[in-house]
């Protein structure tokens, strides 16, 4: 059996945390993985410059959905500059598995959504 599907990953897939949308989010962004079509929308509410609440909505494989679920927990309480520092390594640490080249895109999709959202925020 593939060791990708550890208990915590299957748990987040089966019982996603923070699934849904936020009303009047400060940050809201959606991105599709063009290769497999996985979609993640990420909504973030800020308070005093920190993430007060984060929710995701999406469709995709176990890895992308579990990653999105974990990601909403991981970013809670972080400042914008802390969010900007997150990278792929943080995602691998969060998931607790190394992703091969064909699955990296699934795992980092929520991170990419947030990075795009932050880039847009800076432009505004």
């Amino acid at each position: 059996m593939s060791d990708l599907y550890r208990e915590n990953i299957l748990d987040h897939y089966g019982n996603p945390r923070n699934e849904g949308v936020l009303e009047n989010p400060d940050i809201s962004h959606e991105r599709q993985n063009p290769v497999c079509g996985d979609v993640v929308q990420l909504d973030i509410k800020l308070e005093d410059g920190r993430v007060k609440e984060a929710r995701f909505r999406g469709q995709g494989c176990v890895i992308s959905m579990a990653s999105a679920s974990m990601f909403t927990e991981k970013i809670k309480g972080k400042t914008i500059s802390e969010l900007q520092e997150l990278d792929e390594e943080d995602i691998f640490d969060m998931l607790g598995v190394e992703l091969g080249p064909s699955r990296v895109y699934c795992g980092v999709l929520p991170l990419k959504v947030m990075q795009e959202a932050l880039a847009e925020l800076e432009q505004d």
Partner: protein
Amino acid sequence: MSTRTSLDTTTCRADFPILNRKVGGKTLAYLDNAASTQKPEAVIEALTDFYRKHYANIHRGVHTLSEEATVAYEAARDQVAAFIHAPDHRGVIFTRNATEAINLVAHTWGRTQIKAGDRIVVTLMEHHSNLIPWQQLSEETGAELAYVSVTDEGHLDLASLDQHLNGPVKMVALTHISNVLGTVNPVEEIVARAHAAGARVLIDAAQSVPHLPVDVEAINCDFFAFSGHKMCGPTGIGVLYGRPELLEKMPPFLTGGGMIERVEREKSKWADLPMKFEAGTPAIAEAVGLAAAIDYLKGVGMEAIWAHEQELAAYAWEQLSEISGVRVIGPPAKGRSGVVSFTVEGVHPHDLAEILDSEGVAIRAGYHCAHPLHQCFGLPPTARASFYLYNTRREVNRLVAGIRQAQQLFAIKR
């Protein structure tokens, strides 16, 4: 079993060294042949033998090695011409792959023949390789890009074709066999209708030439493209067959060495066919490898390969259809190619492919470079098993077992 095929899978499998390797501790079941095929010893040997004994650059070399390499390269061209029943080997152009072959036509024939107001017809079941070049051409020229629709069963809607043929249509570009649905298109009939409407026809044969006997003269198309790596040959070698009278009028695609007859400071005169379209040092060893692949396939017999794949596809279709939650895409079991795409309710194809990989079974997951088809069928990404001469019923059984295993693992209500 209806027809006893003369193909001996056990013998065939022994010809492919890679089939001995283990993946995840299990014997490899390679079911990703629509993406690329494995190489028999004969092809690997032809490549190394060529590099060990005969390699040099071709054409205009007077030394022994260059002459041997040139003879081998041109013999490969003749071999290809005979394999697809091309009436004239001058129409056989070596390219990198089918994609490059189609781009060659779209760039050279397209940019001289297509203008605003013209119509280019493709189908909704095209691989992106036979779609994006035409989409680009249409964007640049202002020509209309029309899509032949696909019926619910996965066949081309010929009434929709006829509608599109009624008008200023210049090119019909379509696939011989769908890389997702396994549908075998009635290309001879379509070519006849398109020609009657005054259009030229390009056939994307990437999924047909490797699997069944083809005859470009009988199909009567104007252009015909395929890749070597999908037919036991090396990567980096593909073929465009074109009617020489059309190729002669087309400007070159890439320019440089090898494709000129005379060069002056201000202008040049192009070389004759086929060299006009083969600028730069071509994939010489790969052409030799492709010839060896053709020899190998002929030895097994294309009729036998096709019969074997149809039998396997029908078996897979039946076995998969029996699994609850599995939906097989495309036409019914009979008459389709060895490509079987499907969805498994509640299991994303990436996750399915991952689980199957841990069981040594290699399949593909995603949109298979056919986004418009998935959109038209309202399909999520799909899983695809695709067969070749070395695949067996036992491997289909392992696929089925892997699907059941994934269903158990991901039996989570979301």
